[in-house]
């Protein structure tokens, strides 16, 4: 499988993001091919989450453009991007705490529920029941896949951390996105939970056919499961390539060892 030959599913051209005087991102260009697991790594504050937020629509880049499946989405509204096929999870868990696990996942299907308001009110209208069943089937498939059957009816906010992370992944999967953005899917997990999560990510990539753009700090996991890796440091992309290539890169070593790298760091920032 040669991933780089296909047209990119996500292409970021010279993305810059500024908050007043703070430069969160400086001319970052990346392209993710369909079917890839693409990881972004970098020290804290390197701009990883800012980049993902630009893709998901939470932030609007100061300059540059973002293409998703060839379509310019730079100024597209967040909810439209979700409907267009970009799902995401959040670094700090963002489940709807008072809702059940099932309800959380059903929210993820919002844009797929065709049933309009009045037909929905009437319940029997426009094959509502058949539609509901079909959606429930899809949701159950995701629930089975992530092995959260036993907490289906539980209130999301009361679950232990590792399970909540899985429910959040389930909710993002329920959108049936073609590109899924995972912001630190393994943060705060123990070894066993990390292994499980790594397996889920591999499976959702291979079996469910979702392209994965992931931010993760655990180098072991990143190097094991990613097809390609990009390294951000001080808001700039300093290296892109297969895990082996990136690991061998001099800039990367310096960024991670904390040495001042003249080619990268802002002069007298």
């Amino acid at each position, binding site marked *: 499988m040669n991933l780089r030959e296909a047209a990119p599913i996500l292409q970021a051209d010279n993305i810059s993001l500024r908050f007043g005087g703070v430069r969160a991102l400086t001319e970052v260009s990346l392209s993710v091919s369909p079917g890839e697991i693409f990881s972004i790594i970098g020290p804290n504050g390197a701009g990883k989450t800012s980049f993902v937020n630009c893709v998901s*629509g939470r932030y609007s880049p100061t300059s540059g453009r973002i293409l998703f499946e060839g379509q310019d989405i730079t100024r597209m*509204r*967040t909810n439209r991007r979700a409907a267009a096929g970009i799902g995401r999870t959040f670094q700090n868990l963002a489940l709807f705490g008072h809702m059940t696990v099932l309800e959380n996942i059903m929210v993820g299907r*919002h*844009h797929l529920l065709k049933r309009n*308001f009045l037909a929905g009110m009437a319940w029997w209208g426009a094959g509502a029941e058949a539609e509901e069943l079909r959606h429930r089937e899809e949701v159950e498939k995701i629930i089975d896949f992530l092995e959260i059957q036993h907490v289906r009816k539980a209130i999301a906010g009361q679950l232990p951390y590792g399970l909540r992370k899985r429910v959040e992944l389930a909710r993002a999967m329920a959108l049936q996105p073609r590109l899924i953005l995972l912001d630190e899917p393994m943060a705060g997990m123990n070894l066993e939970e990390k292994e499980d999560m790594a397996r889920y990510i591999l499976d959702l990539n291979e079996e469910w056919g979702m392209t994965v753009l992931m931010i993760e700090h655990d180098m072991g996991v990143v190097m094991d499961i990613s097809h390609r890796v990009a390294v951000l440091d001080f808001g700039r992309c300093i290296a892109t390539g297969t895990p082996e290539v990136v690991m061998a890169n001099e800039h990367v070593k310096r960024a991670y060892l904390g040495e001042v790298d003249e080619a990268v760091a802002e002069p007298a920032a």
Partner: protein
Amino acid sequence: MDWNLLLPLLLNGFIVGALYGVVAMSFVLIYKASQVVNFAQGEFLLVGAWVCWYFLTEWQLPFWAGFLFTMVFMTLFGIILQVVVLRPLIGEPVISVIMATIGLGIFFQALMKWIFGVFARPFPPIFAAERVDLLGLQVQPVYLLSLAISVVIMGAFAWFFTASKHGLAMRATAFDQQVAQSLGISVPKVFAMSWAISALVSSVAGVVVGVVNGVSSALSFYGIKVFPAVILGGLDSVVGAVLGGIIVGVLENLAQYVDAEWLHIGNLYAIAPFYALILILLIKPYGLFGTKNIERV
């Protein structure tokens, strides 16, 4: 104890309380979706009642048609209000939006007086029977209609929030707008919907009260009565709003009874809910079902 006085008062309290509950629900709906305390809720009742009155008396429509038209009108009214006045305020501090609702309240209060005058106008008679017999009590049929409508609206709310796509979207938006957006939910649409439903439901209550008491600007006082109800129930709880409404309604009538039997102050019923409001705020500031905001320092 004078049971012949107390029982009808309690029944009256329950029916009026259910109506408070309905208004309180539509108040909570806006608060839940957008954290806005809507001081123009009472004016929604007022506008709805006047519009329906206009359809029935000026256009001579039958009640069901006038009622239906009013509901359509008020839905559009809510959407337009949200789009024109409140949508530009998205992202502004909530207090600015709340001030805007106070302005809206004053505006519609004055507009209704300007168009329809300052005197109370009765609705044309809707039911042939003046009173019907319910378990030995004489009740106005419109009260029964009111109770039925309240129950239907409450059922519809329960269904809407737990089983419908848009209800779920609304709960998600109430929890976290950013996250809701990233799941494909259009937040401006959810806000417009919450205002539309709120205006619609309030106007139904407005029409019912108007049929009983006639339409006048006093109707908007219901918007104030809602405060003890929602504070008691918890600002963000729909179930709490219903119970709070019923409790306030019964409380009012109990106060009426106590007043008539023993105290002879006069008009105690009008202020009793507000004494209750103060007590609730002292004892249980988040209400019976409200979300407790836990602040960690």
